[in-house]
């Protein structure tokens, strides 16, 4: 049988196996390789809340999906074209999503009676005829790595574990990928255990050769390089990008940066990434809890650092009270919330957008805080940078919302040059500017931004006290005066409202006047884009707007809305942005709400668009 080489535009592959099978790593390696090969891509890791649930069970399945292509890729793909199933449980959980006629690459050795039973298969699907509508490759991976590594000096257990690399090797062959970067990576990772590095490399080679030689695969695919702008690229997850964005902001502003944080899935990676950046002067403080995370950051902000705190839903809840302190003391602070499935502990490793209302309203008193959202993994960089810039410019806490899908997902990122980043100037009041006659006033505001001055402890003559009690404007003295509270409350509201001046004109993807507007925010960008794009191509009158700023909302939104008959708001929650749009514009919207711990698929948006517009 000869192998034909097929050219395809885009492919979605899902790696699935036991938590111990190393699927996240396998997926990541394939991703890196594919990125370097010049495809655009997006990924979606999906793992259980347990570290390592019992082997072979449905609950223990860990998966990693990526879509890559020769055009811009906006999501991690709807249904996978290829499913790598390292055991029966993985096949059981994920088969229903595979496209009809899709490819299954299974490790036949794992389909033992015991495992089949654990996964709830009545008979072995690799052997009965049940998978006939798919292209099934059943490979004895465990046996093959054992043969390949018999002389490696590795312990039997370690050999068994390389089967994921064998599978990776097959995929490298199938998609014409160069394994070299992964070899390099393995050598570095196992620099202290070269035997392991070699073993894994041998397994990859064995898989690659198996694909090449055995010819049981009737097709190998070629996905051409994407037409992507020239430049330097690297692959980043949203969490990494967030970390880089924060540090970049500090560097651009010439400030030291302080992160106060407590680990929580799926936000911990921001802390991990930043703690590696010690040589950039990054101060990471793993606090005892979320409250100490944010309050230490507030302290650092008071003392003059660019300060931030990172968390996920339950952690944001715990920070509620302290956000109020940052608000009333008007200190700059970036609060990153990587949303996950709620309420309570909920679905800790799954994605959701259900903290929007909490971000807007989760604190006592009338307290407006600017809220912005990132829309793709690499956009997290720009969103974090922007949040930092705004926090400092307006002397306010800023909440940045990302989510598990963005945080864990990755894509190639065109690295900006230093000059491409927005200017970021900070001026602290200086000792020289004040005297007995011109006293420093801690609440004297900038006329435009209404920001108060940021005086750094250690500066002579600027000694002052701030705190959580209501303040008199200008002097900053404590006051319980009725009218003063009214004035200050308005000032705080006005300051945030005034930030609309920072929001660029709203971009509309599609016609400025159409039957339907699909309005989104945050991590649903890609899926909505795909859905709208497909519908537009079919001639539907539909456009897309995606919000970076949720508070304040862009000033031009009201006028824009008038040009659309209907507004559809797809959200991974029960309709939180819908509430905000309704209350602000007194206008009904159509909701599309998914709360399943999973991102939208482009097709879900597409279908919804048709169902609305076909009715008309």
């Amino acid at each position: 049988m000869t192998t034909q080489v097929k050219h395809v535009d885009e492919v979605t592959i899902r790696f699935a196996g036991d938590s111990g099978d190393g699927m996240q790593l396998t997926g990541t390696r394939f991703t890196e390789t594919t990125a370097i090969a010049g495809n655009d891509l997006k990924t979606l890791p999906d793992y259980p809340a347990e570290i390592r649930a019992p082997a072979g069970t449905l609950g223990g399945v860990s998966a990693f999906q990526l879509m890559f292509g020769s055009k811009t890729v906006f999501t991690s793909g709807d249904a996978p074209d290829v499913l790598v199933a390292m055991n029966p449980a993985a096949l059981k959980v994920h088969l229903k999503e595979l496209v009809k006629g899709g490819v299954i690459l299974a490790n036949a050795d794992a389909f033992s009676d015991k495992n089949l039973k654990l996964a709830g298969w009545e008979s072995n699907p690799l052997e009965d005829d049940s998978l006939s509508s798919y292209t099934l490759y059943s490979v004895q991976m465990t046996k093959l790595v054992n043969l390949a590594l018999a002389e490696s000096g590795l312990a039997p257990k370690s050999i068994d574990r390389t089967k994921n690399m064998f599978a990776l090797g097959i995929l490298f062959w199938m998609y014409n990928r160069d394994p070299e970067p992964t070899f390099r990576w393995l050598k570095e990772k196992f620099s202290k255990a070269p035997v392991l590095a070699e073993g894994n490399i041998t397994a990859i080679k064995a898989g690659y050769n198996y694909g090449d030689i055995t010819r049981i695969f009737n097709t190998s695919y070629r996905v051409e390089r994407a037409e992507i702008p020239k430049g330097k690229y690297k692959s980043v997850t949203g969490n990494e990008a967030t970390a880089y964005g924060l540090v970049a902001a500090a560097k651009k502003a010439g400030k030291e940066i302080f992160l106060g944080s407590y680990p929580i899935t799926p936000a911990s990676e921001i802390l991990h990434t930043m703690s590696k950046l010690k040589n950039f002067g990054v101060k990471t403080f793993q606090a005892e809890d979320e409250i100490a995370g944010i309050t230490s950051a507030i302290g650092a902000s008071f003392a003059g650092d660019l300060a931030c705190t990172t968390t996920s839903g339950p952690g944001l809840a715990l920070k509620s009270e302290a956000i109020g302190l940052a608000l009333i003391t008007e200190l700059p602070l970036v609060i990153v919330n990587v949303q996950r499935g709620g309420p309570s502990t909920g679905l800790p490793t799954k994605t959701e957008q259900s903290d929007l209302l909490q971000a807007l309203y989760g604190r006592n008193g009338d307290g407006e805080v600017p809220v912005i959202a990132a829309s793709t993994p690499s956009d997290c960089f720009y969103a974090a940078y922007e949040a930092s810039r705004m926090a400092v410019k307006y002397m306010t806490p800023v909440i940045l919302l990302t989510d598990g899908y963005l945080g864990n997902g990755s894509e190639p990122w065109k690295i900006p040059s230093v000059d491409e980043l927005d200017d970021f100037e900070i001026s602290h009041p200086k000792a020289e500017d004040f005297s007995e006659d011109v006293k420093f006033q801690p609440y004297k505001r900038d006329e435009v931004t209404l920001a108060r001055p940021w005086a750094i402890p250690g500066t002579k003559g600027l000694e002052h006290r701030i705190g959580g009690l209501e303040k008199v404007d200008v002097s900053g003295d404590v006051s319980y005066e009725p009218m003063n509270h009214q004035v200050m409350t308005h000032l705080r509201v006005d300051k945030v409202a005034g930030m609309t001046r920072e929001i660029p004109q709203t971009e509309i993807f599609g016609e400025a006047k159409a039957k339907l507007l699909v309005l989104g925010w945050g991590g649903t960008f890609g899926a909505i884009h795909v859905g709208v794009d497909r519908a537009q191509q079919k001639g539907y009158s539909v456009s897309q707007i995606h919000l970076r700023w949720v508070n304040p909302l862009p000033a031009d939104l009201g006028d824009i809305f008038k040009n659309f008959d209907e507004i559809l708001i797809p959200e991974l929650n029960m309709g939180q942005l819908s509430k905000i749009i309704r209350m602000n514009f007194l206008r009904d919207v159509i909701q599309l709400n998914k709360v399943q711990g999973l991102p939208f698929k482009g097709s879900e948006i597409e279908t919804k668009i048709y169902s609305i517009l076909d009715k008309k």
Partner: protein
Amino acid sequence: MSDKNAIKVEPVALTRKDFVPGNEVRWCPGCGDYSVLAQVQKMFPEMGIKREDFAVISGIGCSSRFPYYMDTYGFHTIHGRATAIASGVKLANPALSVWVVTGDGDGFSIGGNHMIHLLRRNIDINVLLFNNRIYGLTKGQYSPTSLPGAKTKSSPFGSIDNPFIPASVAFGAEASFIARAIDVDVKNMQDVLMESHQHKGTSFVEIYQNCVIFNDGAFADVSNKKTRPDHALFVKHGEPMVFGADQNKGIIIDGSHPKVVDIGKEYPIERILVHDKTNPLITNLLLQMTLDNHFPTPFGVLRQVDKPTYDEGLISQIDAAKEKLGEGGLEELLALGDVWEV
């Protein structure tokens, strides 16, 4: 450690007045807080630190109004979080001399966790705990240091809570400096404040403070000048533990238990236990005496040991990373990791 990260201690010509802001002090007449304020205002100028290099951070409570009355940088924060906020202040700006003022409620009820974690980390911060064994600002509920049976607004039938001994909690939390003072004993407080300042690492100072309104006389036995000598033991490193109006009583170890003895023939001064602020067994022994009626209450520096501080650790780790990997700028940041060109 780079210079900008060290507290600059040099003679500065400051006086008490430099630390008194113009505003009015809003504690009840007769409150013990006044006395502590006076001592802090007296001692700050003597520490050789510029006024602008002090930061006074507090939580919420009567005592926590303190920063408003000190003409330094100050932050009156939220309930229980002063220690965490101060941690951020110190780590952002290690050249500051950071002082936390907190109460038995603020520091040991809602703020207990941040307190013990600060002590564990040993960040170079001075903590002044105003212990009046009551929630003053909220008008008189019992606190975690109130004595069993205390009748308060929230315990009309008497408290059934077993109290903390703040200094013991600090000890259990690995504190490197533990001292105790009382509002009315000006001299001891001044010494303790100065030693606290001189200690590198977290200094924990418990100050017995009288709340005239809601818990008047809580510390009568040690605040009353007449009864104090018999009820208070002022310890000094390297000196025997002697107390009493005529300095005629002392502490010895009898088997595995401490005991009060009359100094004299049977127990000459040489047999009296000598205070060693670096020995945890001695510190523990003093702590065990605290609420025990058979013993005097110990004051002074109960423990002081040198231990690595978190702030120095952080800075030297950053310095070492810069040394090893080269100082990273924006350019380097963007170039990190596996970069490819298209």
